[in-house]
């Protein structure tokens, strides 16, 4: 059977599974809709958290990015796992003990202030939409490459599925579909990784093959990769090119940002007991680590494979996947030295980086690119980093069913994250904005209806992001983590560990973190992108890592302002004593 037909079958089966689960687990009350009525088993919640967390970016893009960055890519591996330690130790058990529906709920109650609640809602909505845009793009890529469906139609199909189980099932429906989606995505990630590990290193465990010898020789894979990289003019694969301070700050911003992401935190509201919240964070990290320790191995395998299968190969003999991805425009080849062979080396192949294709065909049958060649280097290939994981099974010549499986896995990763994000958006609108602020008199039934309407509207907005992708998606990811680290994390942390912090301090802290971090990112990413290099950065910190700096600004301002104004009321002290109790 060909790959496309198999992909249709695999995707079809997985989608019907998700719909089936949604019908079985409909939400009947607001507690069902927001937090699955606190009835989720900690292991199931761990899986759901893992699926919620591992997005299209983790599944599709991360290994590809690390493949090109080498050791510099470690920031994502440590940053997106280490945050769970912070979450498990500093936030999850206490917020679960508090026992309400949303993150702004805690902020509004702890700081006895609707203004604080609204600032939190604003940050939360901004962070969540930033994230969703990326998921929808992932759905579009998978549909267009593997099912040869128009990207727009692909996004609409994805929206319809999420609409069905998120609007119907709320948190309860989402949780159990996420459990299924985790199983699909981890299986789809591990199977090709194991195959490729055996192929390259003769070791079925990718984490070990990564440090093993290349099969048929006594050379270690990583030594070979270092050598290949240097021959082609890149840096050693296992060495940093970024400064230590920048790596430190980016890792920290991603860790504290992870711990402050509302759609992750709210997952720990769904378990029955406080001790379950702690345990559940542990399970979540095991399930996440399974993918995150495999990813860097996949990166290394993919890089060796990629270089070996295209370097110095005549274009006419280039493998099928190379031409397939060229058709979609994610690979381009410009024969700078006119020898008909593909030459890959360091540097951008084209002026203006992204290829612009004309409709004509070049001398060797390639798609003609109208960009001027970049003559400062001899590299002839443009390759979008996002395609490495998706193309990997084809590059390694794995059977068609593996390719189909990867497509279904990528969709599971994108849809599960999108659904989790949609839920926190809808809950913050129906619960925090409507019920707690604007219309306190609505009944539970009305609130549930508002929640469903808000979820539906959010899905449509997210879908529009997918169909008309804003050009700034990649830039705003730094935003999401930076803001979570510099606004939400500090007020939650201080709210639990420092009783004296009053509402004035919390609001001033959040706003200063927000302003400093977004100001820095906007300055370097949008206003003066040409200045965005290490010699202009404050203390050598890139915009991606600045959220960690913003976090300290938030702490400093919050503590200072707190001392000026009077201490919080007695009932807040009692509340904190209560959530600190075992």
């Amino acid at each position, binding site marked *: 059977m060909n790959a496309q037909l198999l992909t249709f079958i695999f995707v079809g089966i997985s989608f019907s599974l998700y719909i089936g689960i949604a019908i079985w687990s409909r939400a009947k009350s607001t507690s069902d809709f927001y937090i699955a009525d606190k009835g989720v088993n900690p292991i199931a919640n761990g899986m759901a958290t893992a699926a919620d967390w591992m997005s299209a970016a983790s599944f599709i893009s991360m290994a590809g990015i690390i493949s090109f960055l080498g050791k510099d890519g470690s920031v994502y591996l440590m940053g997106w796992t280490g945050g769970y*330690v912070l979450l498990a130790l500093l936030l999850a058990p206490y917020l679960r003990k508090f026992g309400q529906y949303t993150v702004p709920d805690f902020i509004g109650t702890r700081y006895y202030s609707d203004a604080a609640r609204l600032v939190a809602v604003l940050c939360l909505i901004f962070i969540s939409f930033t994230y969703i845009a990326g998921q929808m793009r992932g759905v579009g890529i998978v549909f267009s490459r593997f099912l040869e469906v128009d990207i727009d139609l692909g996004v609409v199909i994805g929206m319809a599925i999420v609409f069905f189980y998120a609007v119907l099932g709320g948190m309860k429906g989402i949780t159990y579909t996420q459990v299924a989606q985790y199983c699909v995505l981890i299986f789809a990630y591990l199977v090709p990784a194991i195959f490729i590990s055996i192929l390259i290193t003769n070791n079925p465990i990718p984490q070990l093959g990564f440090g093993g010898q290349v099969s048929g020789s006594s050379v270690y894979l990583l030594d070979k990769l270092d050598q290949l990289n240097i021959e082609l003019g890149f840096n050693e694969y296992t060495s940093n090119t970024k400064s230590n301070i920048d790596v*430190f700050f980016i890792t920290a911003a991603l860790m504290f940002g992870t711990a402050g992401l509302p759609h992750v935190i709210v997952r720990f509201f769904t378990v029955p007991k406080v001790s379950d919240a702690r345990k559940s964070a542990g399970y979540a990290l095991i399930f996440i680590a399974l993918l995150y320790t495999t990813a860097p191995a996949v990166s290394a395998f993919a890089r060796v494979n990629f270089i070996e299968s295209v370097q110095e190969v005549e274009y006419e003999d280039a493998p099928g996947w190379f031409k397939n991805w060229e058709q979609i425009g994610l690979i381009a080849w410009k024969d700078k030295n006119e020898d008909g062979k593909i030459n890959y080396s360091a540097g951008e192949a084209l002026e203006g980086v992204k290829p612009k294709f004309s409709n004509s065909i070049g001398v060797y049958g390639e798609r003609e690119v109208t960009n001027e060649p970049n003559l400062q280097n001899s590299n002839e290939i443009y390759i979008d980093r996002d395609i490495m994981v998706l193309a990997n099974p084809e590059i390694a010549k794995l059977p068609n069913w593996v390719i189909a499986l990867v497509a279904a896995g990528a969709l599971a990763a994108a849809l599960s994250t999108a659904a989790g994000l949609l839920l926190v958006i809808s809950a913050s609108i129906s619960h925090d904005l409507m019920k707690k602020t604007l219309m306190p008199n609505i009944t539970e039934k009305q609130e549930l209806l508002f929640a469903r309407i808000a979820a539906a509207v959010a899905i449509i907005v997210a879908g529009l992001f997918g169909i008309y992708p804003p050009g700034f998606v990649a830039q705003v990811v730094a935003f999401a983590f930076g803001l979570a680290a510099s606004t939400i994390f500090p007020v939650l942390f201080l709210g639990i560990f420092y009783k004296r912090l009053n509402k004035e301090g919390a609001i001033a802290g959040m706003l200063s973190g927000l302003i400093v971090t977004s100001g820095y990112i906007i300055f370097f990413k949008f206003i003066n992108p040409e200045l965005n290099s290490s010699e202009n950065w404050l203390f050598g910190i890139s915009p991606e890592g600045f959220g960690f700096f913003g976090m300290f600004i938030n702490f400093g301002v919050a503590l200072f302002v707190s001392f000026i104004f009077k201490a919080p009321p007695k009932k807040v002290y009692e509340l904190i004593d209560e959530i600190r109790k075992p």
Partner: protein
Amino acid sequence: MSYWKANLLILSIILSIWFLVSFGFGIIWSESLDALSIGGFKLGFWFAQQGSIYVFVVLIFVYVNLMNRLDKKFNSKDKD
């Protein structure tokens, strides 16, 4: 020692290890550790891309166990 003090002590010990393996071994001293190797990995590189993640998982479960023991000692009901 009160429940809260014991809790803070556990937190600070675990977070110190958390900091040491990731920011310490994976970043600050990573290059010096690269002089050593395990299998085909340079040690600093291994901590940055594999080891720190394994330690994170272990840390959370150590925390879970210590806290469960502490809860028992203070005889908490741990109800909803």
